[in-house]
């Protein structure tokens, strides 16, 4: 590869990150400005943990694509970084420390029961992407690390400044990633610049990074969805035989569906509705997931409207 095309790709990568990295997502802007409520911050920590759990899995997939032992020796460190050398060490454990520091139950978060469906889809899409693409594209998709290093430092500062109620020990994850991310980013960038030989390769690498940016963005959309307040559409009318009728459809709903809809009062968030159902059905293992998926389906059918969160008073 000529010097020129390498510099060009490098510039393109920075351009993509400058335009599309999720630091510009409204949710992250509010986080940095100290505008998130405790509940919103908890929602983010709880859901983002699912992303953390996908990272070692996608790095494992990347390892299976590499022929070069020295590449694998380097890359396998990422799995150790996340999983630790021993239990209660590494990035995943540090994230659960953060969860506790924001007032969540460690085991509840680790159970992934309350992960929102949009978040789950975004994270699963990342793993599927790596599964279905070659080593160059997979490594290119990790280059969001380039922007992550500086951003995580700024995030830790913002947390100390705006969310003083969080114990400082809880922020160890951000501090440790501030060290690791630049090293990982450089390693990934070197690989992509060295192996994107043709114009077509460079195009594929850039598109992989764009897709990854979209995934991180939609993860935050998924987090925001959990804070919206489901309300039964004013168009919906119950008939005496228990049928729910809308202009274009009639839906027969069982008693559990009815129970969920009854909880959709336009005040409670989607998360609150799931919590309410969890309380009344402690025996149901997947109740949160069932509630979220039902609400999504009802939203698509126009039965339920997801109202924006209430503005801060």
């Amino acid at each position: 590869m000529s010097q020129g095309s390498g510099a060009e790709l490098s510039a393109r990568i920075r351009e993509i990150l400058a335009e599309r990295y999720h630091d510009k997502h409204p949710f992250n802007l509010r986080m940095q400005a100290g505008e998130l409520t405790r509940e919103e911050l908890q929602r983010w920590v709880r859901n983002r943990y699912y992303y953390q759990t996908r990272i070692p899995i996608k790095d494992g997939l990347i390892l299976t694509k590499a022929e070069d032992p020295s590449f694998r020796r380097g890359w396998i460190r990422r799995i150790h970084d996340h999983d630790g050398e021993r239990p209660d060490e590494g990035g995943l454990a540090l994230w659960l420390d953060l969860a506790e520091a924001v007032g969540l139950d460690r085991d509840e978060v680790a159970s992934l029961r309350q992960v929102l469906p949009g978040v789950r889809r975004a994270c699963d899409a990342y793993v599927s992407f790596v599964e279905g693409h070659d080593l160059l594209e997979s490594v290119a998709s990790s280059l969001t690390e380039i922007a992550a290093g500086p951003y995580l430092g700024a995030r830790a500062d913002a947390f100390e400044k705006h969310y003083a109620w969080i114990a400082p020990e809880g922020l160890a994850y951000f501090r440790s990633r501030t060290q690791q991310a630049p090293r990982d980013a450089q390693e990934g960038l070197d690989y992509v610049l060295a192996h994107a030989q043709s114009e077509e390769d460079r195009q594929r690498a850039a598109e992989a990074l764009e897709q990854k940016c979209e995934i991180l963005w939609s993860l935050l959309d998924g987090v925001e969805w959990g804070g919206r307040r489901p309300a039964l559409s004013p168009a919906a009318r119950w008939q005496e035989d228990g049928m729910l009728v809308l202009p274009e459809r009639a839906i027969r709903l069982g008693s559990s569906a009815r129970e969920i809809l009854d909880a959709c009062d336009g005040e409670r968030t989607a998360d609150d509705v799931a919590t309410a159902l969890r309380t009344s059905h402690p025996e149901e293992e997947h109740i949160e997931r069932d509630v979220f998926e039902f609400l999504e389906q009802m939203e698509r059918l126009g039965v339920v409207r997801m109202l924006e969160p209430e503005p801060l008073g």
Partner: protein
Amino acid sequence: MNPAPRLWNLVAELTYRCPLRCPYCSNPTRLGDFPERLSADDWGRVFRESRSLGAVHVGLTGGEPSARADLPEIVALAHDAGLYTHLVTAAHPLDPEGLRGLAKRGLASVQISLQDAFADASDAIAGTPSFERKLALCRATRELGLPLTLNVVLHRRNLGNTRAIIERARELDADRLELANTQYLGWALTNRDALLPSREALESARRVVERESQRSLRPEILFVLPDYFRKRPKACSAGWGQRHLIVTPNGRALPCHGASELDLPFWNVTEHSVEACWRDAPGMNAFRGEGWMQEPCRSCPERERDFGGCRCQAFALVGDAAATDPACELSPHHDRIVSAREQACEAADAAWIPRGPGLAE
């Protein structure tokens, strides 16, 4: 005989009078054969009997249903019968004040037709100034908190405005937008050369709809490629006599609004109960099930999905209502669809005949 399927949806065609002159009107071309024979009380009985057969929705339509002075009474009777009462209107003569009265009597939702995204174009197709009235009624619908569906029939002259139509629907806060590609029956068949669009125009409209639907859940957009441009026919209204019952202004009970063009023994609600009209009328049973099917439908694995296509289209284009819908590529008469597309393509500037006025105006 098997018990009749459950009735779900009643379409009450209250009158064929209409101040609009749209060249694709789905009313019968022989409007004079359908005098209004049902009083408000007769309709009340039809509503109650339909509800007890299982009907959930009633669509009050026409023609223009608000051409009937007793519409408020009819709305109240439909609502009292326990039906989800939906009004399909061209906003003429109905005005916001009239709509408020209907809402008080239990109206649940409103569908308003626009002919295009802009006043000039819309009024030219409707054949009468009506666009501004329509916008006013759309706003009144939303102010009353009622769900609003916009219906725009698509054809050669407005297909290019698809994006503007979607923007208009968003501006009016519509819940649902039906982009209904013209069905070439009735008046639309008469005017086919002037209405049929090109495949390219349809394809680009379809892409616009796809993009816009991804951008927002509102409005829900319905866009179905017209059967003239598909390999397979569209399903006959969820199956002949399976879900929908249409009652015409003179009381005939039909499985779909096109069926009045067929020479079949349907019954009349002024002479029989709704249950008998639905369950026993020979016309209603003519194409229930699969026994009537000819080849290639009879042995086709897709027959359960599309029921052989549209009976009315088979009759209109082949002369045999039991034939395979010629819109299907497997029909031995599919060449009639192909040549209609070619003919329309050559007749780029064809004029249309506006629909007739209906009765007693």
